[in-house]
């Protein structure tokens, strides 16, 4: 088995897209959009990271998760607890939160023998178990009352990461790093095999691919990513309770974001999350203050009907059309 990359040299369109994205990413700082807007962007980027971790699992291995809230919540609680109770620095606690989320995913490894809806439902069940554990283990987690007294993000090299600007730059950087990791895996031989496993698992096993092992690694990595974003979010918002940290929206929103943006691409889930979150907060909430999520359902349904491959697939298709080339499936 080899993880040797197929090719890491970016093409010209990829380079242009990268520079454009960088400019878009720093624009809110350069143009000083204000604390409220930056706060919304931080939350949307947390969702983007979670969407990326969900899409990684779905795209590389074909595993559809209905339970990413479990990893998000475990990461959040683990980071908050080790920083508050053990006094570990937040910069150590956050990756540790991701690691604990990965460890929690080990208990889910038996579900990898399931496929399709059975896997999805099994993961959903696991997520409920972790929410109940967080509620019942009150002596550790604070129970239903939650946790409030734990450190916020620190100041590093003079940059206060707990400020809106600092949080934005930190979460944006972590999203970028994980997107880079995702791209590297996708382009490696392992990534090519994982893309094949998603739709043709027997065909890969019969040529020597240990599909269970590769899927297990992707589950652990996806859990780590989700756990890190759960941890970052916990330190950004400063409070945790089981119904929030393990809430169903942390399972559903990344799915909506990834499908809306195009889950088979790397940029799709990120763009989808930012678009969906800002639409929800700025448009849907103003139109329907209570039950505004219904508009997300409408938007997603329309999107699936007119562009089943999401924004990325739609835009890619438009770009490819004049040349008559291969349909755009990856960014």
């Amino acid at each position: 088995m080899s993880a040797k990359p197929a090719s890491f040299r970016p093409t010209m369109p990829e380079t242009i897209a990268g520079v454009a994205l960088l400019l878009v990413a720093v624009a809110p700082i350069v143009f000083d959009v204000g604390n409220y807007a930056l706060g919304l962007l931080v939350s949307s980027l947390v969702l983007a990271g979670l969407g990326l971790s969900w899409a990684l699992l779905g795209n590389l291995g074909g595993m559809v998760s209905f339970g990413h809230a479990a990893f998000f919540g475990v990461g959040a609680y683990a980071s908050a607890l080790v920083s508050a109770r053990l006094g570990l620095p937040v910069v150590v606690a956050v990756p540790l939160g991701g690691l604990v989320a990965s460890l929690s995913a080990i208990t889910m490894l038996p579900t990898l023998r399931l496929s399709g809806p059975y896997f999805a439902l099994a993961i959903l069940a696991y997520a409920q178990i972790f929410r109940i554990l967080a509620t019942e283990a009150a002596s550790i987690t604070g129970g239903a009352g939650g946790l409030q007294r734990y450190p916020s993000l620190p100041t590093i090299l003079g940059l206060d990461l707990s400020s809106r600007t600092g949080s934005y730059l930190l979460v944006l950087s972590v999203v970028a790093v994980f997107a880079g990791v995702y791209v590297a895996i996708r382009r490696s031989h392992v990534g090519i095999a994982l893309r094949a496993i998603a739709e043709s698992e027997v065909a890969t096993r019969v040529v020597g691919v240990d599909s269970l092992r590769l899927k297990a690694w992707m589950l652990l990595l996806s859990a780590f990513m989700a756990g890190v974003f759960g941890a970052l979010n916990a330190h950004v918002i400063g409070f945790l309770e089981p119904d929030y940290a393990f809430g169903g929206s942390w399972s559903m929103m990344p799915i909506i974001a990834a499908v809306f943006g195009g889950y088979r691409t790397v940029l799709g889930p990120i763009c989808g999350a930012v678009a969906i979150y800002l639409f929800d907060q700025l448009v849907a909430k103003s139109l329907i203050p209570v039950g505004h999520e219904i508009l997300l359902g409408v938007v997603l349904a329309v999107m699936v009907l007119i562009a089943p491959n999401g924004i990325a697939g739609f835009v890619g298709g438009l770009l490819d059309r004049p040349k008559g080339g291969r349909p755009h499936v990856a960014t």
Partner: protein
Amino acid sequence: MLRLDAVSVRFGGLSALTDVSFAVPAGEILGLVGPNGAGKTTLFNTISGLVRPRGRIAFDGRDVTGEPLHRRARLGIGRTFQIPQPMHRLTVRENLLVAQVFGAGAHEPERIDEILAVMEIGHKADADAATSLALQELKRLEIAKALAVRPKVLLLDEVLAGLESRAKHLFMLKLRELHALFGLTIVIVEHDIETISNLCSRAVVLDFGRLIADGTPDEVFRDPNVVKSYTGGTH
């Protein structure tokens, strides 16, 4: 090279294979014959590791009965499926790359080119496997993938099915070429008696999951049990 001892498979109350025993020496082209439902594909599934049997399967002197599918492929058991199973989201070349890297443990682009050329699908190398290939090209891709694993034994499940006689003859010559070029041992499932007679030095016949004949093609096709199984006589 390959030895089966008292291999049996049951699916619930149905005996798919019952005490099947035979050996395949290195370098042989063996025909696996039998009416529909005789257990030929189940036998391939059992040898390749998709189905766990009772009994014993030895490959290259090693008991592989408990080995999973992917490990048997790495040991050198390659196979094709009756209905081609390409890796749908990959190009033809990527299909072979995955087979080579994970099955043979090395990435040798030149060998991939060689296999693509031999299987005459080089012109489709960078095309999507699932959407751009006709059925016969998909069958060639099936064999190409199996070859990329560097198999010692190649199990071919009805690769000649659906071909008209001229195309079947040419494909048969191709199989002979592969046999010589890659030093393969081949087990082929095929219904056509003439093809088996021309291609194989030996044939085994299954009926209702039991091995009912084993010998040269001439011998087995004259065997009264084989004639009876093909003419619908009760077993």
